[in-house]
């Protein structure tokens, strides 16, 4: 693990009041490598290292920790602080329904997550309506219908166009008294201008109270491009990190958090409908550090 890697370098550091800048740079070089190997975006790593270095330059050597352990402690704290911060707590619209919109790249886990959120809200005593606004992918609506029916959740869709479906879904929720609407959208590339415009128009049509970017935990350097583009187009309220039951280090979590500046609201931990949970920044921080 990271501590063992450093002990080698740091063995030659004698106990002084401060670490030399050279010692700190050598340790931070290894941290930089660890973060890049964990898929944290390069620009995010650079900013992160700069900030940690500042802290290291003014640190007093601890009596109980080696310099390496101390720096790792700082790194862990810094990671946890960036990943955590303001927790997203769903506050329901005074005039229902509360509208939730999910967006993201192809295959990231949106449709599955819509159903999971539906069940989650139902457990909170709400009456959600799932809206299948992905009319592009073969059998996408069918997928949502099956997932919804397995969890006793209502699903609305019609074969018109995504913006109309979303709007009509909202009308339907109002008509029958559903107090939460969760809109599934088609996967799309952040550089596809036509489809980014389409999801913007879906957002305008239903005025979501929460817009979540759904991102796969195994995403690499591309995470910043995705986060930037979706945030610029939709103004995100939060992030949902999927497939954390895999063994990817999950550096994308840090990248997306840093770029969008919005909380990681949920993580999903499997394919079953109950496999969604709150995000724990400390756990993610140590996972990223490896």
């Amino acid at each position: 693990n990271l501590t063992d890697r450093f002990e080698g370098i740091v063995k030659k550091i004698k106990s002084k009041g401060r670490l030399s800048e050279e010692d700190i740079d050598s340790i931070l070089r290894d941290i930089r490598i660890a973060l890049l190997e964990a898929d944290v975006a390069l620009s995010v790593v650079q900013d992160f290292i700069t900030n940690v270095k500042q802290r290291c330059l003014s640190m007093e050597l601890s009596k109980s920790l080696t310099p390496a352990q101390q720096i790792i402690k700082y790194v862990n704290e810094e990671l946890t602080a960036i990943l955590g911060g303001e927790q997203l707590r769903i506050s329901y619209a005074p005039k229902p329904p509360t509208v939730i919109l999910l967006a993201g790249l192809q295959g990231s886990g949106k449709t599955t997550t819509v159903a999971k959120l539906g069940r989650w809200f139902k457990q909170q005593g709400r009456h959600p309506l799932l809206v299948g606004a992905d009319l592009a992918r073969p059998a996408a609506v069918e997928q949502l219908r099956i997932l919804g029916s397995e969890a006793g959740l209502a699903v609305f869709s019609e074969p018109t166009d995504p913006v109309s479906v979303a709007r009509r879904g909202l009308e339907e929720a109002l008509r029958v008294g559903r107090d939460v609407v969760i809109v599934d959208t088609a996967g799309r590339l952040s550089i596809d201008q036509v489809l980014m415009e389409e999801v913007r128009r879906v957002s305008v049509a239903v005025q979501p109270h929460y817009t979540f970017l759904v991102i796969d935990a195994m995403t690499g350097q591309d995470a910043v491009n995705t986060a930037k583009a979706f945030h610029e187009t939709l103004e995100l309220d939060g992030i949902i990190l999927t497939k954390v039951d895999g063994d990817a280090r999950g550096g994308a979590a840090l990248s997306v958090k840093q770029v969008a500046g919005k909380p990681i609201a949920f993580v999903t931990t499997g394919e079953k409908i109950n496999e969604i949970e709150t995000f724990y920044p400390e756990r993610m921080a140590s996972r990223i550090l490896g």
Partner: protein
Amino acid sequence: LRGKGRIDQQVYDQLEEAMILADVGIPTTAKLLDSMRNAVKEKKLSGDASELANYLKDEIAAVLDVGDTELSMEEGPGNVWLLVGVNGVGKTTTIGKLAHSETRSGKKVVLAAGDTFRAAAADQLELWAKKTGADFIKGASGADPSSVIFDAVRHGVAQEADLIIADSAGRLHNKANLMEELKKVRRVAARPPGKLTEVLLVIDATTGQNGLIQARLFTEAVQVTGIVLTKLDGTAKGGIVLAIASELNIPIKLVGVGEGVEDLFPLDREEFAETLIG
């Protein structure tokens, strides 16, 4: 660092950054840059920026030059291609595209709905079968995927189909029980009268370093014969395939560049290298 036999540090940093941003990863990037530095030291290369970039592109194309990039097909009916990979990478869509290109080139194709787990997986594949004129075999929802594939192969051979393309459920490689299930699927797919001629691992171009671990574990479990790199039409560069090719000696056979039926092409190594370091 300037002058003869030396590389301008700025040029070096730019090339390193391009590779890191492309998900090439630290070990492979270091290897490629070392090779470049040695070539300059041995005066085989000047320190000129464009010459260095071209050298790197050639090296990248060379790394990818492993194995047979043709899709393997033997004479007679019953060729089986099995698609595997983690969740959401593009297996089912890739099968649709393969059905299209193979029926276009005169082959009789059967699609086997080997994903018996995920909601509407069979429906999704059936739509691709309809679209491409391929035959379609599915089982009951929740059925043993091996039995569906077995039925599809038997049906295919009876119908003198050249090719049975088998879908499998997405699964994370760190789930031992799911990898065991896949091993059984492969055994059954390889059983006569079928001839298992390709096990294609689908890798999403947005995947980071985990892609190498995926490749290792899927190869260990089911002897992957080729990689399909999907979603290259996005901003992600898919650089992790360099490590996969060089460590596991597996060819990148195909690239997916969109969601349409024609958006699948053989890998062009030079073009890939060119795009990788921009």
